Structures are given as structure tokens and as C-alpha cells.
């Protein structure tokens, strides 16, 4: 019974960790994507308003600026957040590796 419970926890724990890492990766992807989009959108909106480049949009200037700056700030904030989220996940991975180690399994079997 103990053994079944142990393996049950192990399998569900591993699946949970895999899901967590996927979420982590998506978070990082989104953060970097939003940040780089904002980095391009803000100067593009300014240059478009100055008439240096031509941008096609039906948004008024202020609305476009707000959305661009908002995207930049959101991306920046999420990138900062990645410094908290990612190390926590690395710590959990270390825990999982210890759990999956042969020593621990042998202990449990005994």
C-alpha cells in the first residue's frame, strides 16, 4: 500500500512538475514577446506620428501610444517576474530529482 502510494505521488508529482515547467516556459515566452513587441511598437508609433515611417492603423495616436507603452510596461514587469518564477521552478526540479533518485526509491522499497 505504501509502495503504491509512493509511486502514485511520484507519477502525479512528475506530471505536475512537467505542467508547471510548461507554464513557466509559456510565461517566459509571453514576457519576452510582449517586451520586444513594446520595444518595437513605441518607437514605431512615434516615428509614424512624426511622419518618418508609414503605419497602417485605425487607432488614434494617443490610443496607439497607450497600448504600445502599456505593452512595454507589461512585458517589462513580466520579465522582472521571471526572476522570481524561474528560480522557484528550478528549486522544485532539484527536489524532484532527489525524489526520483535510486537511493530514495530503494529506501521506500525497503
Amino acid at each position, binding site marked *: 500500500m505504501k509502495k503504491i502510494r509512493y509511486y502514485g505521488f511520484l507519477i502525479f508529482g512528475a506530471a505536475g512538475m512537467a505542467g508547471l515547467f510548461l507554464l513557466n516556459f509559456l510565461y517566459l515566452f509571453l514576457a519576452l514577446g510582449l517586451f520586444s513587441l513594446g520595444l518595437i511598437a513605441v518607437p514605431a508609433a512615434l516615428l509614424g506620428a512624426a511622419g518618418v515611417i508609414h503605419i497602417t492603423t485605425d487607432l488614434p495616436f494617443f490610443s496607439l501610444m497607450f497600448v504600445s507603452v502599456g505593452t512595454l510596461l507589461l*512585458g517589462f*514587469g513580466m520579465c522582472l517576474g521571471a526572476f522570481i518564477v524561474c528560480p522557484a521552478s528550478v528549486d522544485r526540479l532539484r527536489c524532484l530529482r532527489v525524489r526520483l533518485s535510486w537511493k530514495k526509491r530503494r529506501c521506500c522499497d525497503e
Partner: protein
Amino acid sequence: MNKLKKLSLMFIILGAVFIAAGAALAYFRPFNSYNDAVSDETLYFGSVRELIVITGSLPITVEYWDGDDCEVSCIGDLPLITDTDESGVLRLTQDDSFSLSLFTARRDSFGVTVKLPRRTYRRVSLTSSSGDISAQPISCESLEISTRSGNISLFGADDRAKIKTESGNIELGISALGGDMELSGGSGDISLTLSKRLSVCMEYMTEKGYCTARGFAEEFENRRGDAVILQNGGEYLLKITTVTGNLTVNGEQ
């Protein structure tokens, strides 16, 4: 770590507030509200002999009408780019691949509708990326229809029609054949109606598609792989190729 958490949260909230404010500004702007941001125009062109329409996601409809001029109505994010020349070529282009829109109203009614006076045209060429194309039987020397993922619907076609799609469905009615004809599809299904009078040998070549034939001497349902249908001696060749798309052929009753 706590400081970093606070800073990150502050930026995220500030960013979300800015985006919401930008969206609200676009939505509630006092002049030129978002409803008017949709381009809705009707243009008239005289003495058109050749029609070329190229769109991105806009559906295209071509039909005959009783007027003397060619009427073009377009509802979309951006106005149409029109170009005419002395030889009677009318070129309509609509590229919406770089447009950025929020709260676009009337998305369902977007499209280009071309109404042509009843006469014979030199060439009609309709191309779209993801927009559907539907056309009435148009009398012309050459008819070219191609899409990437849009569906094609054409009734009363003949051998002068060249129809091609990558992943769209094709719905086609063939009323006359004066020569061989070719239809090219990809992963979309093809639904074909053949007139009883046609003398045709239809060759269906596919990699993974299924064929259903109804209303012919030999009938079959969901037969996998290549198929041949012969009607009235098979004078002309109708070649249909797909990759994974299925074919349904109905003999006109």
C-alpha cells in the same frame, strides 16, 4: 526578493492599465467612432473588359447585374486600391495583412462584391489568401480562381476555368466542356456537380482522399484512392487532384 516582486507587480498593473486606457480611448473617441473606422465604399467603373481582384482575408463575390457600369462595393478595414487602364483592365487590390484594428465592427459583412454588366469578358482573375470566393457563371475567355485557405464556390463553370486552392473547399458546378479541364485542391474537399449532357472522363487523383460518386452508371461511396468516372463516352478529360481532400461528384438529375 520582496522588492522585486513588488516592482514586477507594479509594472504589470501599470502596463495593464495603460493598455486598458488605450483600448478605452479607441472605443470612446468622440469623433470618428469605431463604426466609422470601417471602410464602406461603392465605386463604379465603365468599359471593363478584364477584371483582376486580389485580397487577403476579404471574401470576393462576382455576379452579373443589369447596370451599364461595373459596380464594386467593398466593406473592410482598409479602402480598396483600384487601378484601371485604357485597355479596360480593372485591378482591385486589398491587402489587410498589416492592418491593426481594435473593436472592428461589421466583421461579418466584410467583403468585396463586384457586379458586372452582362457581356463577355477577356479575363476574370480572382485571388485571395483566406477569403472565400463565390462567382456566378461569368462569360469570359479565361477565368482564374485561386485561394490559399478560402473556399471556392462556382456554378456554371466550363473548361476555361482554372481553379486552384491549397486547403480550401471547392464547390463547383460544371455546365459545359469544350476542352480538357483541371482542378487542383490540397486538403480541402471538392464537391462537384456534372451536367448530364457532358461527355466527360473524370480522373480523380489523390494521396489520401476518398471519393463518392452518385447519379452515374457506376456509383460508389467513400472509396479510398484514385477513381475514374466515365459519362457519355468521355470526350473531354476532367482531371482533379487533391492531397488529402475528398471528392463528391453528383450527376445532375
